[in-house]
């Protein structure tokens, strides 16, 4: 992006993620490994820092995208100023005693464990012993009636998926009533580590912060006083209350790994290899302005306008002046995230209309459209059929636009056509056919760009997907603070314990001792 006419302000680096949704098979490996790493503790059994939702679907927690109900994110007031949708500062302090917009445990689901002990300790008998579910909250046998992805693969969708807040337009009626021609895809979600985080802005005690060095949004557990305003303010509902400690917890972007130059656990273990990690440089002085862009549909371009081209000498000079080290600048130049988000523009943010400037972006899935082509008797491999379908088959397009572009179908269609053209061109090349260039040019790609994109999206080598620069030696002293112990140590763990008056002595009468 040529930016020489604009003065570059305060340059900051952000470690960001892109997910290629066409490759997501909904295996939940990311969610499970994340849970094993971060939330397999009492108090956060119900919390999934990373979860995979089936779309269309109501999501987790239920209908979290309905901001009329949950009041997450930012909005513009009558004078065009950016305000938190949940209200101003005074209003927030007045709701400290009872937060009217906080999801209840039923909106997530009741966490359970199982009577595993019964499998080995049951007396000999005619029947197989079973492990019955027990509520972790009450210790009593319970029926499992909801979960973090209850409608996995559209199971139960006719009953529930109509509640998807994205199905609000007139076009959505068709999605509800013609499920024979339905479509689905999986949407892995984690904290967006936003440039304009609403949770940080809503935290009354100032316990939440965005790290200057890498943009990771964290909760300082020592300063959190449990006012739970962050949960309401986050439109993605990715801050959780630990009901045992009464404190907020959220995705850490696996900062101990990222500091060591390793990808996050969800990325590392992704079976479909659909995640990309890399640096983005951005102009911190223009974040507020971009988030206050008047038209929802202009927010995507406004956010892209905040990102800086790491190859631009002016940007590099400004970045050095802002204290960004040389190897980070090098990593920013090699960033797959910058390529997908800003250069090829095939990645889109989730719900830009929330105005938090989210930093986990998605390459929209082509599969719903391809399925539609098949259903209409067309040929998936013929770009003309697919192009026609992209423009004609409105339903999946409208739906994707609700998710990624604040309803602007043109942008989504452009990305899908680019992906189609890329497929057809690379297929032609592999088969020794000619003539794919026309489709490429129509989608706004050169042959060189197509090869780059193909290498990123299809070949997708480990080293190309994850370009994570390690934290700096200068910070070594600070980092050793985390080195000699587990960052999620629970009370009673190894080492001398501190006073923990605030921690309840957990006496759940489950055989598993309350562990999920």
């Amino acid at each position: 992006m040529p930016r020489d006419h604009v003065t570059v302000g305060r340059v900051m680096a952000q470690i960001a993620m892109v997910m290629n949704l066409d490759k997501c098979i909904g295996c939940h490996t990311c969610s499970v490994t994340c849970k094993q790493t971060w939330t397999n503790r009492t108090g956060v059994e119900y919390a999934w820092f990373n979860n995979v939702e089936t779309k269309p679907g109501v999501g987790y927690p239920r209908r979290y995208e309905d901001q009329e109900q949950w009041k997450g994110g930012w909005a513009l007031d009558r004078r065009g100023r950016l305000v938190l949708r949940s209200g101003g500062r005074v209003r927030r302090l007045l709701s400290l005693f009872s937060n009217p917009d906080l999801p209840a445990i039923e909106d997530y689901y009741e966490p359970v464990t199982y009577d595993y002990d019964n499998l080995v300790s049951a007396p000999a008998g005619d029947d197989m012993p079973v492990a019955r579910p027990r509520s972790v909250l009450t210790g009593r046998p319970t029926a499992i009636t909801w979960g973090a992805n209850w409608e996995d693969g559209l199971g139960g969708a006719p009953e529930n998926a109509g509640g998807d807040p994205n199905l609000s337009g007139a076009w959505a009626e068709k999605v509800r009533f013609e499920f024979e021609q339905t479509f689905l895809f999986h949407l892995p979600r984690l904290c967006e580590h936003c440039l304009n985080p609403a949770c940080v802005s809503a935290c009354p005690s100032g316990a939440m912060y965005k790290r200057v060095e890498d943009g990771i949004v964290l909760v300082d557990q020592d300063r959190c006083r449990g006012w739970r305003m962050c949960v309401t303010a986050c439109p993605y509902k990715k801050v959780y209350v630990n009901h045992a400690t009464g404190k907020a917890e959220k995705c850490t972007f696996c900062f101990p790994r990222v500091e060591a130059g390793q990808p996050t656990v969800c990325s590392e273990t992704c079976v479909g290899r659909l995640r990309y990690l890399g640096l983005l440089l951005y102009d911190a002085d223009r974040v507020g302005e971009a988030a206050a862009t008047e038209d929802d549909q202009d927010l995507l371009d406004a956010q892209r306008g905040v990102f800086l081209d790491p190859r631009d000498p002016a940007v590099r000079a400004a970045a050095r002046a802002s204290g960004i080290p040389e190897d980070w600048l090098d990593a920013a130049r090699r960033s797959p995230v910058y390529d997908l988000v800003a250069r090829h523009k095939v990645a889109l943010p989730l719900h830009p209309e929330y105005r938090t400037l989210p930093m986990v972006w998605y390459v929209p899935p082509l599969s719903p459209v391809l399925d539609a082509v098949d259903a209409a008797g067309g040929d998936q491999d013929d770009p003309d059929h697919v192009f026609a379908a992209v423009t004609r088959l409105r339903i999946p397009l409208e739906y994707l636009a609700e998710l990624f572009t604040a309803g602007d179908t043109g942008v989504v269609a452009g990305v899908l056509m680019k992906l189609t053209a890329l497929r057809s061109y690379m297929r032609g090349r592999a088969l020794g056919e000619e003539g794919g260039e026309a489709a490429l040019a129509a989608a706004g790609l050169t042959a060189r760009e197509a090869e780059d994109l193909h290498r990123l999206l299809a070949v997708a080598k480990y080293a190309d997907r994850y370009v994570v620069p390690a934290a700096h030696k200068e910070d070594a002293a600070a980092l050793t603070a985390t080195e000699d112990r587990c960052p999620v140590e629970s009370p009673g763990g190894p080492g001398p314990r501190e006073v923990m008056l605030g921690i309840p002595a957990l006496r759940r009468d489950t055989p598993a001792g309350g562990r999920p």
Partner: protein
Amino acid sequence: MNAAPAPLPAASTSGADLLLWVAVPYICLAVFVVGHVWRYRQDQFGWTSRTSQLLEHRWLRFGGPLFHSGAFMVIAGHVGGLAVPGSWTEAAGVSEHVYHTTAVWAGSVAGLAMVAGLGMLCARRLLTRSIRLATDRSDKLLFPLLAATVVLGIAATAAHNVFGPGYDYRSTVSVWFRGLFALRPRPEAVSGAPLLFRLHALSACLLFAAWPFTRLVHVWSAPVGYLVRPYLVYRRRSAAAGRGLPTSAGPGPGSR
């Protein structure tokens, strides 16, 4: 330093009075102060309101605001009644009758709000199984103690000032209370007060002693600074690590 020495407790002050109205209050105050310093330095992680709204919100929706707004009014009333001598309000042109009427009316409203709110908070804690199981030892100390203090206080007001002939605690209990802070204890001033007032004062002393070891510490973290700070908070990694591990998940010994 020529001020006349405080009148020594007369012979009429018994040993029991000295214990109850001098020793106990000072011990409780000392525990209150030292306990807070100790806990603030040792237990930042446990320093929280311990919200349970996630588990139960129907009772809390009314009980929480009711209790807290009542508590604010009750605290303000106690400051006015205990710390401010009657002569000051007289000098400000507020007659005893006006003071008394205002105090009884406002105090009754505030007290009832606090009792009703606390009742709801206790009810949800007892009736909601998930919250009952998450109730720790400090809560089991705090809730009965707080409830006893509040109930004794409103009972004393009701028995003597609403339905009774009226009792001028400002010339007795308040004198004792101010004497404690002026380091001139006046145990004889309170020892003759009606039983309900004396029990209320004693349970309040115990409540203050228990304060630093319970969730009541969240009172001192009332986030008034939020009104003036910038929305976005940025922090350097190194600065954060210097003052303990700022992880999002779980407690750690930190670098203290």
